[in-house]
């Protein structure tokens, strides 16, 4: 492994992981709200926000699917050193990270009737993230809110699977927002 791969992790793991976990949790609880996170400096093209989420949520027991654009040695090695997470195919993934058009949505686990939680969480890298675009409604949202989703149809289909389905974290630069399976998108 090259040395720079070993850098860019959390300097103070418990503190930084707790802070970013709080940000991810709040983002999931309040869909569409945008949160800044810090701590990870991953190798390009992985964004700092996506890197921080990976360091916070992944470990040796969470297989990660890397979309084509991110499937590069420096990204793989960085994730391996800092999280220990193994890489796997989409159908085995607990987490996936990559650009929207490089994530095979239909292939990820959607959970089972007994264990709806055994589904994948997708970390979607977006060029920009702002409170404009698609309208979100549902639990955790007062009336309605807007967030710049890449499309609406896929999220409508996903919400219909409830209690099964995927959960989404959108990352751009050092910001993130989330759309869980309970959110209605229009």
């Amino acid at each position, binding site marked *: *492994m090259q040395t720079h791969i*070993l850098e860019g992790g959390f300097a103070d793991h418990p503190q930084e992981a707790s802070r970013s976990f709080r940000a991810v949790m709040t983002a999931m609880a309040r869909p569409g709200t945008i949160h800044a996170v810090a701590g990870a400096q991953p190798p390009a093209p992985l964004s700092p926000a996506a890197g921080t989420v990976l360091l916070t949520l992944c*470990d*040796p*027991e969470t297989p990660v699917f890397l979309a084509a654009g991110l499937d590069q040695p420096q990204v793989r090695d960085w994730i*391996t*050193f800092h999280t*220990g997470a193994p890489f796997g195919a989409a159908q085995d993934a607990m987490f996936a990270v990559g650009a929207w058009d490089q994530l095979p949505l239909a292939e990820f686990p959607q959970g089972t009737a007994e264990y709806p939680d055994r589904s994948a969480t997708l970390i979607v890298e977006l060029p920009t993230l702002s409170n404009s675009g698609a309208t979100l409604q549902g639990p955790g949202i007062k009336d309605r809110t807007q967030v710049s989703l890449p499309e609406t149809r896929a999220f409508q289909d996903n919400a219909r699977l409830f209690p099964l389905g995927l959960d989404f974290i959108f990352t751009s630069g050092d910001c993130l927002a989330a759309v869980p399976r309970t959110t209605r998108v229009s």
Partner: protein
Amino acid sequence: MYVAVKGGERAIDNAHAWLAEERRGDRSVAELGVAQIREQLALAVNRVMAEGSLYDPDLAALAIKQARGDLIEAIFLIRAYRTTLPRFGGSIPIETEDMTCDRRVSATFKDAPGGQVLGPTFDYTHRLLDFKLAAEGDVGPAPVGDTATVPTPHIMSFLDREGLIQSEPASDETPADLTRAPLELPAGRALRLQSLTRADEGFILGMAYSTQRGYARNHAFVAELRIGAVAVEMDIPELGFAIEIGEITVTECETVNQFTGSRTEPAQFTRGYGLVFGMTERKAISMALVDRALRWKELGEDDLGAPAQDEEFVLYHSDNIQATGFLEHIKLPHYVDFQSELELIRKLRREAHANIAQEAAE
């Protein structure tokens, strides 16, 4: 139905303070150090590590001190601590063949290669109280012998070579982990062994004893019992190879059990397996017997209806932390539950009295 009630905080705080004082005991007696517990109550420490499912003698000793010697409470503390640790990964399966044996005995072969090594055993003591210990008698070093290194191959391998014993299929599969996913039945052997190795020693001992007394007969010989240190190796991704990350003491018991064979298969011995953290031989032997009893289905035996053959009964009742949690919760307030029972019984009695009165009147 659960109803939240407030109150009692001061009583709880004071109870904790008194607990701390009672834990310390008489202040004119020297306080017990964690290192003293680790060194001098090592078998209690071993039990806490085995059933707490975490190998760390210092932590287990601390837990025993904190729990005032209540080992199940200490195991509870270790289990709780364990959940706070990030998991770095899983080890390469340990090679007990390479164990540096403190003890190694076989009940089946007198002249086992490597010899019969008794180790620091209670077996041949007379179980007479030693009042010298009460007088704090110091002991000298144990005698030493000739340490010409002789390999100690597993005794089972000799039977295996002759085809006399059922073989154990190897597998590269990552074993299921009951600390990560709920235990579902039927459980594979890997889950059963994990469950048994962290199970309550008393429960497993009782289950094993029941098989000896005839509930699921599987007459067992201890082919080999070995206790000693083995290295733990793990693959380190950033290095690209495996290194030793430590050394642990384990107890391993392999049993040879009777098996009659079938019309299509020649008669073969079957085997049971016990492997437990620390020097824990009663537990390891018990584990091997219960493991063997639970294998009836895969060995094509009859279900004799014995408790030790019943996977659900054994696996769902063997964990002392689960059991104690559910058992002890019934002493906590159930005021509302009980009120409804009270009302019901009063109503039934009123109705019965009314019926008696009515019959008497008629």
